């Protein structure tokens, strides 16, 4: 019997689940322009409650009705009310932070609500692995029957809804122009909410269907399902529902075929299957004609919206005077000296770890604050930097300082490779390409023995300069802080250099920059490469501080958290990155010392909630403080004058 049909059959359920989730993504994206990367997490939430309820003795039908049919859409509608509706038309980075906030918060919220023991997996109907029938000699399991038939029914209902019902017509009109739809008396926001409800229903369905296939209710695998779904949605150009479904089926089936044909055992083949979605996502983003112009949606009423304030205007407000920079420099020196000489050895260790995070965060400050670009792979670049540093030290006995430098070069090279395709895209496209890279790094690059060495990681010594040893953490901290100060200065310097001003011009208006003869690509690739190298430096410092580094230190999820932290604290000044880096380790340390263990699970929830609250005040918390103070300063004498003239 041929293997191919078996692979196709066993890939079909996966394809269906990817497809359901992908349809949900596309529905949401089309009605509000937000690509909800948290949709997999929503599916997880529904699947968790569904299975837990059955554990508690509910019948699967009742549990299905309550959790999938009622609770699922409710989550979508609630999220629309609280979040999505407010970020419609907002800059991509704001939209992204809002969904990343959810992505980070939902699994943590779920453990808080449902406890940390995961329920046992339950099938909706039919035992999943029982063979119910044979089709042309091939066995058909319960899971295949259920998943495929439910998907077919859903597809039928969905195409009817979109093409033959009033609601579908309204949805399509709202997608194109909410304002024009409102001029015809259609309540665009309610239509949008319904679309989100539907999207969330599909997510819950996907979650409930995948659990018996995976034999577990796993937050991680359900949450990351969204990447496969995004790949499928990308095949459909984020618009076409049929193409999206076709992409999803193709993805599910190809994965099984690869698993069937590839030799087992080799490191790279193990990574191949999970990384297929990322490869497809990358290709679709780079070659799909519609995706290269994601920004250009054709709302005939777009002329009504006020112009987005140009970045220059914003930047001018935050730019600081030269004098105050000297003051800041002096203050930094004093702080460094006092801190480095007075902390305990343990805290010196934590603080230099904080400095390494600050370094990585500065790479985001540069990339986002100056370059206006978004990257979801800064942690991966840090990982590359850290691993190369470590490998150089142990295999070539290079001085660790040189290793850090080489690590930064390697990270810069990786950044350059990623920047080439992503420079053709805008906003969301860049974010997705970098996400694909981060996932690839997780599943293919870091497990390699000469890179991250799989789960074990790499162990390395502390550096030694002549007679100065950094084995004790205090000298290391001193060195790292001075280095960090230099790097902060460098990031500010780039912003005010020719390249920085060009990047500013490009990010304010790609077309405008084109018109004055600036090459977007050269500018954005340069900034991206430098930023990746800086992240690599951070990874190197992390490695020498920790004296070890493993893939779990910088997996793709950290990239999301890092972006959220920096953007929320403010990516337009270096203070956001510095506060973020040190704050990150200090908070973590304080919590682990003083708070009960269970608080650890709450951290993501807090980060997520912060991110979401930031979305309503997108200038960044630190920056807002800063601007408030400058405003106060500039207001005081004016008021005085006015009062005097009266």
């Amino acid at each position: 019997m041929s293997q191919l049909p078996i692979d196709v059959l066993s890939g079909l359920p996966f394809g269906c689940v990817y497809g359901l989730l992908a349809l949900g993504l596309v529905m949401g994206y089309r009605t509000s322009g937000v690509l909800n990367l948290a949709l997999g997490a929503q599916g997880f939430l529904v699947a968790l409650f569904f299975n837990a309820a059955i554990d508690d003795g509910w019948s699967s039908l009742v549990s299905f009705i309550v959790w999938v049919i009622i609770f699922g859409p409710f989550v979508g509608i609630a999220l629309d009310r609280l979040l999505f509706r407010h970020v419609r038309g907002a800059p991509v980075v704001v939209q992204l932070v809002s969904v990343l906030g959810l992505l980070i918060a939902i699994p943590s919220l779920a453990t808080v609500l449902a406890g940390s023991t995961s329920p046992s997996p339950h099938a909706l109907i039919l035992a999943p692995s029982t063979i119910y029938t044979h089709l042309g000699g091939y066995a058909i399991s319960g899971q295949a029957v259920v998943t495929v038939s439910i998907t077919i029914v859903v597809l039928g209902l969905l195409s009817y809804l979109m093409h033959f019902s009033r609601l579908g017509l309204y949805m399509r009109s709202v997608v194109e122009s909410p304002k024009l739809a409102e001029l015809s008396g259609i309540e665009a926001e309610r239509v949008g909410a319904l679309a989100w409800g539907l999207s969330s229903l599909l997510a819950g369905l996907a979650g409930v269907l995948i659990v018996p296939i995976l034999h577990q209710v796993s937050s991680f695998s359900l949450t990351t399902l969204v990447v496969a779904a995004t790949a499928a949605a990308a095949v459909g150009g984020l618009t076409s529902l049929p193409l999206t479904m076709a992409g999803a089926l193709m993805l599910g089936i190809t994965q099984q075929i690869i698993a069937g044909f590839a030799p087992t055992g080799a490191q790279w083949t193990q990574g191949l299957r999970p990384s297929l979605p990322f490869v497809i996502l990358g290709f679709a983003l780079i070659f799909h004609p519609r995706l290269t112009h994601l920004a250009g949606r054709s709302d005939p009423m777009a002329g009504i919206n006020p112009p987005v304030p140009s970045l220059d205007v914003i930047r001018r407000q935050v730019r600081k005077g030269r004098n105050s920079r000297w003051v800041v420099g002096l203050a930094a020196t004093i702080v460094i000296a006092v801190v480095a000489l007075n902390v305990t050895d343990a805290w010196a260790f934590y603080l230099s770890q904080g400095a390494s995070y600050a370094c990585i965060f500065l790479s985001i400050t540069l990339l986002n604050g100056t370059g206006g670009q978004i990257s979801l792979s800064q942690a991966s670049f840090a990982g590359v930097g850290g691993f190369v540093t470590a490998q150089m030290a142990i295999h070539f006995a290079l001085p660790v300082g040189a290793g850090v430098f080489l690590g930064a070069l390697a990270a810069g090279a990786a950044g350059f490779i990623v920047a080439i395709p992503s420079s053709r895209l805008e906003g969301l496209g860049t974010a997705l390409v970098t996400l694909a890279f981060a996932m690839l790094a997780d599943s293919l690059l870091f497990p390699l023995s000469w890179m991250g060495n799989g789960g074990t990681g790499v162990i390395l010594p502390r550096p030694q300069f002549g007679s100065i040893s950094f084995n004790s953490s205090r000298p290391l901290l001193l060195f790292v802080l001075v280095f960090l100060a230099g790097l902060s200065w460098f990031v500010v310097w780039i912003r005010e250099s020719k390249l920085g001003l060009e990047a500013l011009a490009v990010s304010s208006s790609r077309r405008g920059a084109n018109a004055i003869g600036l090459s977007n690509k050269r500018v954005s690739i340069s900034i991206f490469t430098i930023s990746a190298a800086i992240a690599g430096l951070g990874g190197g410092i992390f490695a020498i501080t920790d004296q070890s580094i493993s893939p779990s230190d910088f997996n793709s999820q950290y990239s999301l958290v890092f972006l959220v932290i920096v953007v929320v604290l403010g990516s337009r000044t270096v203070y956001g990155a510095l506060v973020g880096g040190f704050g990150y380790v200090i908070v973590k340390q304080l919590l682990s010392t003083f708070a009960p263990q269970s608080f650890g699970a709450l951290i993501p929830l807090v980060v997520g909630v912060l991110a979401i609250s930031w979305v309503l005040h997108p200038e960044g918390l630190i920056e807002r403080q800063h601007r408030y103070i400058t405003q106060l300063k500039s207001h005081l004498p004016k008021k005085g004058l006015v009062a005097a003239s009266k």
Partner: protein
Amino acid sequence: MIENSLKDLEKKGSEKNQPLLVVDNIEASYGPFRALFGVSFTLNYGSSIALLGPNGAGKSTVARAISGLIRPGNGHIYFRGDEITGKDTWRIERLGVAHVPEGRGVFASLTVQENLKVFLSHAVPKKLMHEKIDEVYSFFPRLKERSLQRAETLSGGEQRMLALSRALVAPPLLLIADELSLGLAPILSQEVWSSMGEIRKKGTSIIVIEQNIDQAKAFADNVVELSRGKIVESPSI
């Protein structure tokens, strides 16, 4: 439904010469750009106003403020005695205000027929939908030929016909027509103007924004001239 309220009006007849729309000292901005600096005027039941002025005077902005597309920063707008300032666009539409925006004003990715269904969705009862769409087709036979084509494939003039059709077959209480006949061939333009006259006879009050000054003055009962976001007290035109 609006049709009914139009009939109510006819029956009462007493509301003639009462204000339908009062625009009281509104100001509006787009981000940092101020577009209107205190504009006031009144429109009575069944009468019409031509809103004139050079490009960039703020005519479209006034229209947008009335239909709720933008929120005035200051001032008040009353419709049938109730304040509608800053209300949602769809609510204002359902009160009987139809705003045909300037420019394309159609859903490019929907077919002609789907566009009509959306435009008429809240203006006519569900039962009458087909009848009204046929009415549009008899007014603009070209649209009938293209009823299953996506609107983006129509010519500029055809798109304009599509955008206007709602007002023609389901006259609202207040019609705001921005650049009414722009892009229409002269003969068609005449037809549209004469059908405007018929709509007015049915009791609809009309605000026309028009570059063709003579046409607009011949049509409207009153002229309001705007310049740089302010009303010009002694119209020069």
